[in-house]
């Protein structure tokens, strides 16, 4: 049985060649790589279209972190986790606060967040009542400060993930019960890889999050104490 190299290459998204005869990288592959790297780099610095998101999901409450710009955001993750002192948040004590955050890929948020928020509102009563914040220069933990200030029972942050070469607009979602500044990452549940290149769809992610929100309401916790037993569990990104 003869299998074509093309057939084998279809088995992995890795940039395999299965041809070591001409060792220098073919120019077409070199340029394709540079195209993907450029897209990932641009995604990080692309401004977020908040107006477009507001049209899709309704009124947003704009907030920002202490990082003054993208350069500072990249160098100082600690500032990206803290609310800017001029930000005011009403302590409306909702069951759920939703934070839309630019993170490392603003385009990911513009592409995925509206659909996810709409789907979540359809399936989850807490989401229909939830105030929605628009957070700039934000890290995941900024959601803790927002949720705490709002006296929210739990906070859901949707955030642009670090762009990869294959996928530059993937979004992640983190749910944290009883949020407060300094809470550990192990107290969150994460649904990651929400994108349209073979990742989780916004609808699938919303279904999983609705399940998690319901379980968090029932058990009063998120994180390692709340195992994601919703149908199908996505792999989380981790370091080598």
């Amino acid at each position, binding site marked *: *049985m*003869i*299998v074509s190299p093309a057939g*084998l*290459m279809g*088995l*992995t*998204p*890795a*940039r*395999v*060649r*299965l*041809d*070591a005869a001409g*060792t*220098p*990288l073919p120019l077409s*592959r070199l340029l394709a*790589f540079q195209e*993907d*790297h450029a897209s*990932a*780099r641009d995604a*990080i610095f692309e401004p977020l279209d908040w107006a477009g998101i507001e049209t899709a999901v309704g009124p947003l409450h704009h907030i920002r972190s202490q990082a003054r710009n993208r350069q500072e955001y*990249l*160098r*100082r*993750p*600690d500032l990206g986790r803290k609310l800017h002192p001029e930000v005011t948040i009403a302590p409306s004590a909702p069951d759920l606060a939703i934070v839309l955050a630019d993170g*490392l890929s603003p385009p990911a948020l513009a592409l995925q967040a509206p659909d996810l928020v709409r789907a979540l509102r359809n399936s989850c009563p807490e989401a229909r009542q939830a105030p929605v914040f628009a957070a700039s220069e934000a890290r995941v933990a900024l959601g803790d400060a927002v949720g705490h200030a709002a006296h929210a029972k739990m906070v859901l942050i949707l955030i642009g993930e*670090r*762009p*990869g*070469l*294959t*996928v*530059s607009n993937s979004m992640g979602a983190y749910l944290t019960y009883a949020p407060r500044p300094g809470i550990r990452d192990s107290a969150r549940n994460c649904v990651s890889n929400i994108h349209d290149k073979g990742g989780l769809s916004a609808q699938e992610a919303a279904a999983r999050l609705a399940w998690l929100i319901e379980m968090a309401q029932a058990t009063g916790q998120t994180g390692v104490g709340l195992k994601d037993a919703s149908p199908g569990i996505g*792999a*989380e*990104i*981790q*370091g*080598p």
Partner: protein
Amino acid sequence: MGTYSGIVQGERFTFDGLARLLAVATPEKSGDQLAGIAASSARERVAARRALADLPLRTFLQEAVVPYESDDVTRLIIDTHDERAFAPFAAMCVGDLRDWLLGEQANTASLRAAAPGLTSEMVAAVSKLMRNQDLIRVARKCEVETAFRNSLGRKGQLSTRLQPNHPADDPRGIAVAILDGLLFGAGDAVIGINPATDNLENGYSLMCVLDDIRGSLGIPTQTCVLTHVTNALALLERNAPIDLIFQSIAGTQDANDGFGVSLEILQEAWEAGLSAGRGTVGQNVMYFETGQGAALSADAHHGVDQQTLEARAYAVARAYDPLLVNTVVGFIGPEYLYDGRQIIRAGLEDHFCGKLLGLPMGVDVCYTNHVQADQDDMDVLATLLTSAGVNFLITVPGADDPMLGYQSLGFEDLAYLRETTGLRAAPEFETWLEAMRRGGGLLAGQSAVLEDIGLVA
């Protein structure tokens, strides 16, 4: 705590404590700035280097940068220090050590003999007085040989880890990436996979996939699933085919705690790996990864600069006689290493410090998309490290890891390095590659090979 001082342009700068002195003397890194311990001016940095040059090496045995009482890495460093090996350096200052290392007395044999007498802090300190070319020049004189199913680290060799990661851990996708690497002659250091999902069952099945491929093709190399050490211990009990036991480690007890490991667990794992007795040429069974910034990201840095802490991680590594150690130098992001310049410097420092301490040092020459770097920077670092005699480099298909979402070296980069330097793979692996080529290449008897590695039924 001692107070140290140095003069630059007539101005005296003082430094309270060794940690402060080392942090100010260290080359500019965004991670030390994030920690708030970096030099406040270029002149202050030079003053600290002057003070460091005149610091007796013995000071490092008397003043710990992380307290002896509360940190087991410090205790490991002090308690295992070899006074006899240190004797030739006992009267030296850090600056003298720099001169000695660059001189003719420092050769492969004398450096090997010196290693147990040098501590992490000593080698970190001397590196801060050295330029990039000095780090290359000295590391090149070191030779650290290890063995498992082949022999690694001899002069004239350049080995590689073949990293066939797949975002869904798909066995056939992994097999294709392994085949791609083998065609380029990669994989003699290890065929090692980072699992996308880190649980026991998945780890077990990946171990079997790798072992089946290695066994059916008769490749004289070792395999590894980079899962947590406690997973490896549990799976060894179930007789999983584990060649190398992997763990990420760092330079303080608190940071290791953050990784969920202790020196006791590592000892237990080492002994379990030795008992498995799977090595044929040698019995180095451990594989460690490290990287500057790991302790700070775990909020466990104790005010010590990230490069000194990285050298302290090597003290942990060398206690377990590893086959492989590599720094994942550019993975951690711009808040620790801002750009290509800082990544290149850190890569050379890590390699130098590891080698001086007697470790089989490799490097993952890599970067993420939010750092100011690209493949040109990787070309520079890979070329410099090869010149410095690095034991092994990480390679992935097309320089792009689709699971971890970062860029490393590609198999073509290995071809470039071998072509320009004449360096070869491990001898046993070379022999196997030659036999494959004589048989017309891996893809010649395509169906047989593909069947062997599970790609066709």
